[in-house]
């Protein structure tokens, strides 16, 4: 933590970055994101096991971008989000400095994106173990049971779109749900529309999800919507052998193809 603060101060004092995006202590034992523009205030930066939010979501917001060059406290999912954003031209590598945090909480020094890429390549990239277990349990259900499970979950949905807002990859300024000609997703919350929304979201994140689980944590009614995208992470890996966010130059699974892609259901 001390190293993190020193590094942040150094970056701000030398005017290398104009804002540091990190975590600070919030009310009632919670942590919250903080945007530090003054090096004297960098002492409030913390990092511990509660700091799991995916801060990369702020990198594409104009309210944050207006400060100028951004420094960001980044765990592995955040680093991978940054890779996806760079590969999709949503973030320029010159506009971001990554204050990496390793799995055991050490501050990592990344000279540039290539160094970060080498670090990511050495990490475990699959879904977290807890989610992997939940996926396995769900996959054992039969079709009707799966349908009922998701119907029950989606019936709770209030269409607040927190899943979308919390996701760094959902950066479109005009989302398909705001489109009303045609109206793909009904405005009101009903089972059909809720399901269609969650399918649409999962499909738009297919092969782009980096398994941070932020959508599921952001959901105020506790729909495990992160399992949908994490299931597709597994599938993208098994069919196409790639994980998202491992390089700043890769194309996502659905924006490219290989002539020898294998499937067994097209007759």
């Amino acid at each position, binding site marked *: 933590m001390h190293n993190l603060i020193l590094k942040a101060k150094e970056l701000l004092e030398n005017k290398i970055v104009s804002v540091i995006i990190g975590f600070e202590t919030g009310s009632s034992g919670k942590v919250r994101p903080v945007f530090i523009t003054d090096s004297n205030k960098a002492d409030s930066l913390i990092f511990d096991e509660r700091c799991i939010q995916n801060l990369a979501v702020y990198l594409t917001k104009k309210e944050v971008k207006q400060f100028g060059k951004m420094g960001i406290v980044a765990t592995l999912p955040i680093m991978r989000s940054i890779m996806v954003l760079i590969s999709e031209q949503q973030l320029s590598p010159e506009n971001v400095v990554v204050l990496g945090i390793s799995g055991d909480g050490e501050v990592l020094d990344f000279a540039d994106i290539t160094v970060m890429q080498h670090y990511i390549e050495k990490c475990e990239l699959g879904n977290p173990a807890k989610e992997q277990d939940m996926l396995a349990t*769900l*996959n054992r*259900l039969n*079709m*009707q*049971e*799966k*349908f*009922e*499970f*998701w*119907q029950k979950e989606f019936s709770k949905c209030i269409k607040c779109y927190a899943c979308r807002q919390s996701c760094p990859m959902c950066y479109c300024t005009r989302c*398909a749900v705001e489109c009303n000609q045609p109206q*793909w997703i*009904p405005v*009101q919350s*009903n*089972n*059909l*529309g809720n*399901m*269609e929304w969650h*399918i*649409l979201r*999962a*499909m738009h994140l*297919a*092969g782009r999800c980096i398994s941070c689980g932020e959508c599921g944590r952001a959901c105020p009614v506790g729909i495990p919507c992160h399992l*949908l995208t994490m*299931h*597709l992470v597994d*599938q*993208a890996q098994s*069919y*196409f052998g790639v994980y998202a966010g491992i390089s700043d130059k890769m194309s996502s*699974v*659905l924006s*490219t*193809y*290989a*002539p020898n*892609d294998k*499937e067994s*259901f*097209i*007759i």
Partner: protein
Amino acid sequence: MSEFEPKVVAFVCNWCTYAGADLTGTSRIKYASNVKIIRFPCTGRIDFMLLLKSFANGADGIIVSGCHPNDCHYTSGNFHAKRRWIMFKELMDFMGIDMNRITFSWVSAAEGARWAEVVNSTVTRVRELGPYVSYKQMVNTSIEEEVTHA
């Protein structure tokens, strides 16, 4: 009680399957009349939301068909579509939506007889599966909710 006749929607590409279906007709091959064909410029244009909307509007089965790999009029539309269908199918399976009701196929402009076969086999399969009750129930409750809230 009359026998259940399934409604099947076919999303086909203009260059191969639509021309193939045309050949089926000009060759005077009979096939199930349950199918409603919708022509698209390319399989790459067939959005997964369209498939969901056809179930929501009462379809019991769906056919999605285009040019064989390497034969796409736009070179790579069907390859992109293939990847999308793989992901879509896996997601649908995970969510408990009946993928036996959707046929994905490649039918070229020369395969008139094969198109008849694809349609007939799909219609037979969907007829055996019966109406897509669970999906229709979900649609109906959603409409009822809308009416009561209005």
